[in-house]
């Protein structure tokens, strides 16, 4: 291996940042990809009062669950375009063939994806919660659990997308792969909001969600990277 070649190679951090910058730029230029999941979240959440009951007491009961389910479905909808365009235009091959660990490139793509599709949902959730008459003591619990939970959903979804990116027609298979892994997050999130209404401490639930986030942050990109290598083989 010649030294001149090694010396001129970009650092893994530079490659990570280049990927992050590129994906954010693409999201910025393809605004509908960014806006669609968010609009979906708003629509699903607003349909519940119409479909079930506009009575404040009944809405207050279901508010946390509705918000969490809407966030989960929005995240599922957003997942589909995570690797697809890169697979089709050959950029994914280039990433696989870069000298850097695919883990970090996948992580950069996941972070950018969550910033674009997950964060807007988290930021809008208090507004929708207000519309659904969420008890006033639960806002903090809802916001914080979504903030910790939605990145977990994105990271888990990434594995499913990576496994299915090579398939022509995928239909429901992504949901079948992803949803079972997402259910614990949904349970932890909704339980946290419910239990804090009854006076329980929020810290324990946040610790559980935080642990889930750290575990997926360190392990899920590894699984996604392996799945991508298989998909493109």
């Amino acid at each position, binding site marked *: 291996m010649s030294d001149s*070649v090694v010396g001129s190679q970009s650092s893994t951090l530079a490659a990570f940042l280049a990927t992050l910058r*590129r994906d954010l730029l693409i999201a910025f230029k393809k605004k509908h990809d960014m806006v669609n999941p968010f609009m979906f979240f708003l629509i699903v959440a607003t349909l519940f009062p119409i479909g079930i009951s506009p009575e404040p007491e009944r809405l207050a009961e279901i508010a946390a669950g509705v918000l969490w389910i809407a966030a989960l479905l929005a995240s599922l909808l957003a997942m589909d375009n995570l690797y697809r365009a*890169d697979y089709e235009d050959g950029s994914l091959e*280039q990433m696989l*063939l870069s000298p850097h660990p695919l883990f970090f*490139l996948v992580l950069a793509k996941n972070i950018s994806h969550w910033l674009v599709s997950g964060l807007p949902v988290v930021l809008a959730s208090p507004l929708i919660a207000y519309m659904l008459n969420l008890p006033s003591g639960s806002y903090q619990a809802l916001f914080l659990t979504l903030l910790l939970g939605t990145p977990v959903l994105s990271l888990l979804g990434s594995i499913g997308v990576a496994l299915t990116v090579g398939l022509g027609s995928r239909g429901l298979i992504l949901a079948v792969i992803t949803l079972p892994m997402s259910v614990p997050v949904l349970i932890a999130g909704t339980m946290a909001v419910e239990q804090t209404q009854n006076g329980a401490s929020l810290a324990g639930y946040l610790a559980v969600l935080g642990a889930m986030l750290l575990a997926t942050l360190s392990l899920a990109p590894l699984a996604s990277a392996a799945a991508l290598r298989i998909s493109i083989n």
Partner: protein
Amino acid sequence: MSQAQSSSFAVADFSLQARGLFCERDDRVLFRDLSFGLKGGEVLQVRGSNGSGKTTLLRIVCGINDNFDGELIWQGKELTNQYEDFRSDLAYIGHRVGINKVLSPLENLRFACGLQTPVGDEAILRALALMGLRGFEESQCFTLSAGQQQRVSLARLLLSTARLWVLDEPFTTLDIQGVAQLETLLQRHASAGGAVLVTTHHALSIDGLKVLELV
């Protein structure tokens, strides 16, 4: 042609060898007992009819496809154990050229260089100008023709310090002048000590061209 071309790769000679490659796809044997060697200074053209496994062979060499038997030896050692070093010495342009349609040529190349060799914007603009894309640097790539997109992808070669170029049908969408330019580029890379593995049906006019025929 660019700074990458003017320097030669004198430090360690490049050598890649394939021994007894066997690949089967969908119950059909693409090639068996295929052996070839590629050294610095050589251009190896892989020829063969459609579906004879040219692209598969290239993907096997790059390490995208690991569904094969046989040995790949790089710099005298088994390649499978040293893919990370190998990849920093590899520039691959596939059938899908790796250009995002929404981004501009400049943004695409910034990303490509971020993955491989960091270079400044001036170098990228110079490479694009050399590929005949002056004035298109900031246009979104979906507004460019297929040949122009191919040229954006080929500009990566000008910016790369990799010694091995693996090119899958790089000539298909290029015009006559583009074909001549790419041939010159391959020739120069080889005479600077680099190695090229290329599939094409096109009759290449390159000195010392080696041909591998797949049947």
